[in-house]
């Protein structure tokens, strides 16, 4: 249980560009909290995605690398192999990690790269204005699936990446939580902590998937977006530990 409800030092005192009620802000803070708690600020190297969180480095106060869209885990591989003494994580959206980055994702995981992947699943492309993501729910309308995602039209099914990665031997920890209510937020914090600790122990690849609201694209109020996660999204993406070894 957290007993400090104040801004972590690793989070800068600035306003973000995120929309009101966006989950990225919550998750940024959780990452910073864990880094502070584990005293990792001087050791951590983050990799920011291309996605709404593209300028995460403006919000975090530690070393961060950009990565081309989808290639964060390749960049992280380069970093970690050269600096095994550092703690390296990527922070990636569903488009970044699961669509364009699928190959880099699968292979980094399969190599068992000793890095942590924080996967922000908001079931859409936020940054580019609300297109279908690989994680978009069946029936969910987006800019590129105006009649709702429909597998019958060849638009595919929501991809459960964490489950797929859990099947790879290089992966030691795969888990899914959300930032849709205080309990899940605390849960997510614990997962991130566990993943970093695993990395410190040299256990290999960890993925922490987080269901995160995008009220703008979903065209819901921030509170309705939270409810939608708890009521709808979890049906396709059940919460809990998928793999932990």
């Amino acid at each position: 249980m957290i007993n400090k409800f104040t801004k972590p030092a690793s989070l800068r005192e600035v306003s973000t560009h995120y929309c009101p009620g966006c989950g990225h802000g919550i998750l940024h803070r959780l990452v910073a909290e864990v880094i502070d708690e584990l005293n990792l600020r001087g050791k951590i190297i983050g990799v920011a995605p291309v996605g709404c969180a593209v300028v995460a480095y403006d919000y975090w106060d530690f070393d961060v690398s950009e990565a081309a869209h989808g290639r964060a885990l390749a960049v992280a591989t380069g970093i970690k192999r050269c600096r095994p003494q550092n703690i390296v994580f990527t922070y990636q959206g569903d488009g970044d990690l699961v669509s364009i980055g699928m190959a880099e994702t699968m292979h980094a995981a399969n190599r068992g790269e000793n890095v942590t992947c924080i996967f922000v699943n908001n079931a859409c492309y936020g940054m580019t204005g609300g297109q279908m993501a690989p994680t978009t729910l069946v029936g969910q309308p987006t800019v590129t699936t105006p009649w709702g995602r429909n597998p019958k039209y060849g638009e595919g099914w929501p991809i459960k990446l964490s489950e797929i990665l859990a099947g790879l031997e290089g992966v030691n920890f795969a888990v899914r939580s959300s930032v849709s209510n205080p309990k899940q937020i605390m849960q997510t914090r614990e997962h991130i902590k566990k993943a970093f600790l695993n990395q410190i122990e040299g256990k290999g690849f960890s993925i922490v998937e987080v269901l995160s609201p995008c009220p703008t694209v979903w065209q819901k109020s921030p509170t309705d977006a939270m409810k939608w996660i708890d009521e709808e999204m979890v049906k396709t993406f059940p919460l809990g530990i998928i793999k932990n070894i």
Partner: protein
Amino acid sequence: MKKIKVTKILMSGNEAMAEAAIKAGCFFYAGYPITPQNEIPSYMAKRMRELGRVFIQAESELAAINMIFGAAATGVRSLTSSSSPGVSLKQEGISYIAGAQLPAVIINVMRGGPGLGNIASSQSDYFQSTRGGGHGDYYTPVLAPSSPEEAAKLVLLGFDMADFYRTPVLILADAIVGQMMEGVEFSSKSEFKKKLPPKNWALTGASNRPANIAKSFFLKEGALEAHNERLREKWEKIKQNEQRSSTYKTEDAKYLIVAYGSEARIAQEAVDMLRAKKIKAGLFRPITLWPYPEKNLKAVSKNIKKVFVVEQSLGQMVEDVRLSIPYKEIHFLGKSGGGIPLAKEIVKFVEKVTRNK
């Protein structure tokens, strides 16, 4: 007879470049197999592991170039290599590395294109290499070796230039240079004489210092414009400082052949054949393709009557020759898709043109 030192060892251009990278202290290699450069990853797979450095067979060229982004961002020397189709896949990544001002060396051992083409020697990635094949306003120094030994030398130079200017450097070899073997003697240091700056921008963990960021994204209005202006100044500096070329029998030449890489060697043979026929030919060989050695070319071509550009392509470098010495009479001979303009063909071409007037 000039005797060569017996310390030379027989090596292919590919092996020589790999070994040179190791000698340069390259700590990280990532690459994906493709002919005709497979000897580089093979060599690195063995030697890097033996030395406790990093070799990764990446899942693709895309992954490899982005691993290089990460490795370079930590401040280590890093290398990737590929051949034409694979280098096309790296264009986005190279643009990122240039934008983020990270040092890295990228080897392209060119083969025939377009598309899958074939695996024969070619020089048809000149445009892509010298004019930022990726998107956006950027250039990368491009070094073109014409022998295994020079390839090794240029890899050393490339790493120094990359570190000094914080830029990706391209080694543009052709399949002949990559595959041919010749005696190689390694120098321990590059000819680059400037002092290399400390890498205090590197991502190493923000311990007792402000956070470092490796990035090419500039959201704020005007920020990218200002950044690109700084890049422009850098390219300008490189253009001033780093033009390199060599010449052969140009002192009294009336006809100048311009060629690079393996084609320059063939052209050199043609020069000798022409000289044997009392035709005063000489050779200008660019070593840096970007920046193009226009200063030297201008000087060398001063008393030249006609210029002959010979390439293993449909005509790419010839544009830089035209831009450098627009007032000269310039002729082009090229073959594409693995065709090699042979010495006797060059001779014939020069004879034909010179006879016409």
